[in-house]
């Protein structure tokens, strides 16, 4: 029987948690009544370091949290915010749910698609932009809304989107 290679061992050398991230995860693990509560905050830190969760970092985190890589993998795949594939320098996430779609989210998505020449779910060739669609960012009163990396952009129209894209170097 063929054994499939472990998903965690790819390009291991490239993806080593920084000393700073390791120290922060250790501090978080000690801060909570139970070590495993540091899981989500730790994954956020890893994503901050690499822009995504490289599979090779999962065994490293497992060691710090005294758990198994598979359990972490299960967590990573459950939560939408964790990217198991690299994203562009700017990850654009556009809300497409009710309040935003009532106020033209569709046009914003089409506009972005046209401008960046990618479909939702894709990354530009120069790896600068990734376009994703998300379900409700909790900013319905300021619809339509998108998020680029950690920042919200609200009350969007095509002109505003153009200005925002232009400002991203």
């Amino acid at each position, binding site marked *: 029987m063929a054994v499939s290679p472990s998903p965690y061992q790819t390009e291991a050398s490239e993806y080593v948690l920084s000393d700073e991230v390791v120290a922060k995860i250790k501090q978080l693990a000690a801060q909570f009544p139970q070590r495993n509560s540091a899981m989500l905050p730790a994954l956020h830190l890893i994503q901050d370091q690499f822009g995504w969760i490289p599979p090779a970092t999962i065994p490293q985190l497992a060691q710090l949290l005294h758990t198994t890589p598979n359990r972490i993998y299960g967590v990573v795949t459950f939560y939408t915010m964790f990217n198991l594939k690299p994203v562009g320098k700017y990850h654009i996430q556009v809300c497409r749910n009710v309040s935003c779609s009532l106020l033209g989210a569709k046009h914003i998505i089409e506009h972005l698609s046209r401008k960046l020449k990618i479909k939702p779910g894709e990354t530009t060739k120069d790896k600068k932009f990734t376009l994703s669609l*998300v379900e409700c960012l909790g900013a319905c009163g300021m619809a339509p809304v998108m998020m680029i990396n950690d920042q919200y952009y609200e009350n969007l129209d095509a002109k505003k989107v153009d200005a925002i894209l232009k400002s991203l170097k």
Partner: protein
Amino acid sequence: MIEQKKILTRHVGVKGMEKVENYERDGGYIGLKKALEKTPQEFVEEVKKSFLRGRGGAGFPTGFKWSFLPKEKDRPFYLICNADEGEPGTFKDRVIMEHDPLLLIEGMTIAGYATRSDLGFIYIRGEFKWIAEILERAIQNARNANYLGKNILGKGFDFDILVMRGAGAYICGEETALIESLEGKRGQPRVRPPFPANVGLYGCPTIVNNVETFACLPFIARQGAGTFKLMGTFQASGTKLYGISGHVNKPGVYEFPMGTNLKDMIQYAGGGVRNGKRLKAIIPGGVSAPILKADEIDIAMDFDSCIKANTMLGSGGIIVMDEDTSIPEVAEAAINFFVHESCGQCVPCREGLQKIQQMLSDLMNGKGKKEHIDQILTLSKTIGGATLCPLGDAGSMAIYTMITKFRDEFEALVTNE
């Protein structure tokens, strides 16, 4: 004319409210000081008397929820603030956290005292990173002023708060899924009983309340249950944050006494339907609340009146739709949301919602048959009550009402008959 009553939103737009000295200047922390003069049990009774009901959507009386905690304390008790708001139409808790973080923190500290909790957590949706940072700073300021930490105000009460960001899973707003997530797991709801008040976080007694619920406590502690009850209705006191979005002139978060008329709210606060269009429908309490037709909106916005009108107050997230809105399109956005957010644990929700999504999408693409419409209705009824948590119910109920109330729009999509 209706008037806003600003208890929870009085500091909106005021700068520097994360600093203790600014917060204190306006009566901040008087509530905590007064609460600490009572025994925890006395304060629980006060909250029961106030008839404060949970603002997360279910409307369960807060004081009664607290009294399900064990009498004996043989394990640590935990207190959790549910700040995972993410139901389409809902954007109210962020207003409190962004503009008046210490109001939430004072409320949690009061609740921590009343529930004899050892530690509090704020579980905030992952995307609100900047708000989590505001909260962290405000918590540190409260610690520096001895409003958090050891021996708070010399009363021998120890309490602290940790902030944790979620990671984009709506289901973590369900309290047992939230607890799983705080334990570092996939956010899948637990089987109940046991209830969190007995077996919650780390297997210990745990109370989970919404941001807005906690934010009501400083007022109740400072002014008393009687004054709180003067606002709102007999069955639901206090004020409520209503988030108005969609086709209105002035979308935003507004604070009104519980039971304020929906029609008036749209007219006066929301500024009416934009572009002079006519109203078609309103979703009154987040996308899971059954839709109301334009002639059904003359209702009081409180828990019981909404139930009487066959909908629900939910989170108070009001979505307004004008005459040009396609209800099937709204239904499609709604079902996409619930399919995406289903945790996948219960078959009726996981498979049933996907099947509804497929049939709706077929209808939208001109491939649907008339019988599919009835199949969606049957399936919706089948999902209801067959799952561990209310997500399946919410999704199916929302679609069910959209179809029964606007059936002609769905039938118009059938082309091949």
